[in-house]
């Protein structure tokens, strides 16, 4: 009797069985979430019907009835809310993509400057990074907008810059190029030049692989991409005219206007993000072991090719993931446009459209979905790149 008891599997009470417990916890969690979600939804339906707010996306095709100060696609105040959404999205993408380009240039410059052997350069770069990183972006934006751009002269005392450019507190007014008939030839030349440059690069690579003979790819590419279209442009007699801004008493006609809101937002985003990119770049370059540079030197490479062929490819592997997250941060930070009144997605859609329709749930959900999609696509591409360039270990 007692022998069977000792050989039998020890009986664990159900409550101490880890599997049962795990399932119980999960059921509990799911139940809790479901209960909260049900409560939230039923409350929302209740509150919305009491406030007589419509639901669904019927508002998408309704007339918006408000103006937008900067539109990349045709838009008037008789356009629909859906159209306003696309205007806002394009404005967001415009400021984000320009911001990414400039922040990358500035950030790489400062990151490399911080590693410079020149004491003054290195310390100035460090001072820039420390100062900018420790001041909130919103404060910087407000400073650029209210203290710098709004303090520019009034329209009638506009600063006249070189080449018919006006600068005042309503924005920057540039000559607007108007291309005439012959201009398409130059465009075709540019496209052909690009194709030729890539073809030459491909051929040069193949030849270098075969024979070890390098070719001056950069100069040939510059010839194809810059000189060739310019020559065609000149031959067809410079078929372009500039529509110069004309200063009137109360406004400026013609030309191309760049809003101060846009400039403030772009400035703020570029200056702020560049400080972070600089740190990313510095960390990446420091992460490449010194032995790599020394090995390249001992193989007879000079400092240019060493940097280009040995250090940067390895540093890029470290730099790229955090660089991408900085790009995403810049895109997300562009929502601070609200504070300076630049018509981006949040300002137009989660601001004006939300206030006019009152359909908070739909509007906020769409706005979040847009940013979430951008984030997910970017991180998806990043993972793809990462898996292709990750170190292959034995």
């Amino acid at each position, binding site marked *: 009797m007692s022998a069977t008891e000792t050989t039998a599997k020890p009986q664990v009470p159900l409550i101490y069985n880890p599997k049962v417990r*795990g399932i119980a*916890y*999960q059921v509990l*969690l*799911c139940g809790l*979430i479901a209960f909260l979600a049900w*409560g*939230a939804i039923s*409350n*929302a339906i*209740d*509150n*919305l019907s009491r406030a007589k707010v419509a639901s669904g996306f019927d508002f998408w095709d309704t007339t918006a009835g408000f103006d937008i100060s900067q539109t990349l696609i045709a838009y008037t105040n008789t356009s629909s809310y859906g159209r306003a959404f696309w205007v806002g999205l394009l404005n967001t993408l415009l400021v984000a993509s320009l911001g990414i380009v400039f922040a990358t240039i500035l950030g790489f410059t400062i990151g490399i400057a911080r590693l*410079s*052997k*020149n*004491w*003054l*350069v290195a310390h*100035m770069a460090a001072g820039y990074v*420390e*100062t900018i*990183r*420790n*001041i*909130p*972006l*919103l*404060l910087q934006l*407000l*400073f650029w907008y*209210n*203290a710098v751009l709004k*303090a520019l002269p009034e329209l009638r005392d506009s600063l006249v810059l070189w080449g018919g450019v006006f600068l005042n507190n309503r924005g920057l007014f540039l000559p607007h190029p108007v291309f005439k008939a012959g201009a398409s030839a130059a465009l075709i030349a540019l496209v052909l030049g690009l194709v030729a440059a890539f073809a030459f690069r491909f051929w040069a690579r193949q030849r270098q692989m075969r024979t070890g003979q390098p070719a001056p790819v950069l100069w040939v590419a510059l010839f194809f991409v810059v000189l060739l279209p310019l020559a065609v442009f000149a031959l067809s007699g410079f078929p372009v005219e500039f529509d110069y801004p004309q200063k009137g008493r109360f406004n400026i006609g013609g030309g191309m206007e760049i809003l101060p809101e846009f400039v403030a937002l772009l400035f703020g985003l570029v200056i702020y993000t560049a400080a972070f990119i600089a740190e990313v770049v510095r960390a990446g370059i420091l992460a490449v072991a010194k032995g790599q540079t020394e090995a390249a030197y001992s193989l007879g490479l000079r400092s240019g090719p060493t940097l280009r062929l040995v250090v940067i490819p390895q540093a890029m592997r470290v730099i790229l993931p955090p660089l991408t997250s900085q790009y995403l941060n810049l895109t*997300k*930070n562009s*929502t*601070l446009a*609200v*504070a300076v009144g630049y018509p981006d997605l*949040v300002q137009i859609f*989660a601001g004006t459209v*939300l206030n006019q329709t009152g359909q*908070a*749930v739909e509007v*906020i959900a769409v*706005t*979040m979905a847009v*940013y*979430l999609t951008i*984030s*997910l696509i970017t991180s998806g591409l990043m993972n793809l790149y990462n898996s292709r360039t990750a170190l292959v270990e034995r």
Partner: protein
Amino acid sequence: MSDMATTTDTRLMAGPPSFVQTRPLDPLPPPMKDSGAIGWVRQNLFSSPLNIALTLVCALLIAWVVPPIIKFMLIDAVWDGASRADCVVQPDRPQVGACWAFVIDRIGFFTYGFYPIDQRWRVDVFFALLAFGVGWMAWLDAPRRDLGVIYFFIVMPVLSVILLLGLPAIRLPSVSTEQWGGVLVTIVVATVGIVASLPLGILLALGRRSEMPAVRMFSIIFIEFVRGVPLITVLFMASVMLPLFVPDAWSPDKLLRALIGVALFSAAYMAEVVRAGLQAIPKGQYEAAMALGLGYWRMMILIVLPQALKITIPNIVNNTIGLFKDTTLVFIVGIFDFLKSIEVGRIDPNWATPVTSTTGYAFAAVFYFIFCYSMSRYARYVEFRVAAGDRR
């Protein structure tokens, strides 16, 4: 030959000749151009044509930027005055710099917002309680840090809520959050962000590494969703959608809604920081804990989390810096934080001058810079100290 040798020997015996040094000479100093200040300048500033050019460009840039700033901030600045008249250009004062008189005059407003003046001591006590708690947590060798954790995450929040909101039962008149403002709100948002986000973040991080699929999925979805959207949209959601989701009677006030948004947002970021720390703990630690018969929670609380959190302190502090800067965003959903008080102050007709905006922003920048920079120095110090433990 042997003759020669003997003569040499006897000469040596007689002692060295006078022209041979008995002691080595002191080394000559390095040449002037390679040592001292000149050498340093040559090596660090003028080592190559490119460097000479860079140095000159930088020096010009500094000469162009720095003197005007100093002139504006200090030399031409107005330190005392009672109204805008003291900060505008007058015939006897052609140059007007920063109007610090404005900041000095409105400092109470910037600090407390509309908090009733006779009750402002309560805010000061709150600041003192908070400073005490932060000091206790930040001083790594402080006595009884376990009590410090209880104080910081339980006692201090409860005391602060009673103190700031008021409790008529103990003769503290209640002050609604509408009257809060300025630095008080900024500090409250940042404190709530960190006090709420750390425990929540730890739970989410544990959830993300859990073996239970439902828990893991929920944590991943929450973290990735929140990290994928901008803080503003989270704040918008908290301020316009939250009231829809709860019964009318419970509808939280404006500040609380923003606080919930900030807490959820920073919890997601904190979770990723903690997860990185958890991943850095070797598997042997988990296994050893299990071999000792510890259950999940005791394993985590006694063995894993203390080690993981220790190495994550620098990242937690860096996260806090981000959170502190992000508190400015509550201004967009209509909360009266420090930056908003500057915005309101700078357009106050009593003080509106061409320099008021710049002065206000400069003051705010200095305020945020001091907080963020000292936090980042602290993070670096902890990083160094933690690394010192591993260097042994």
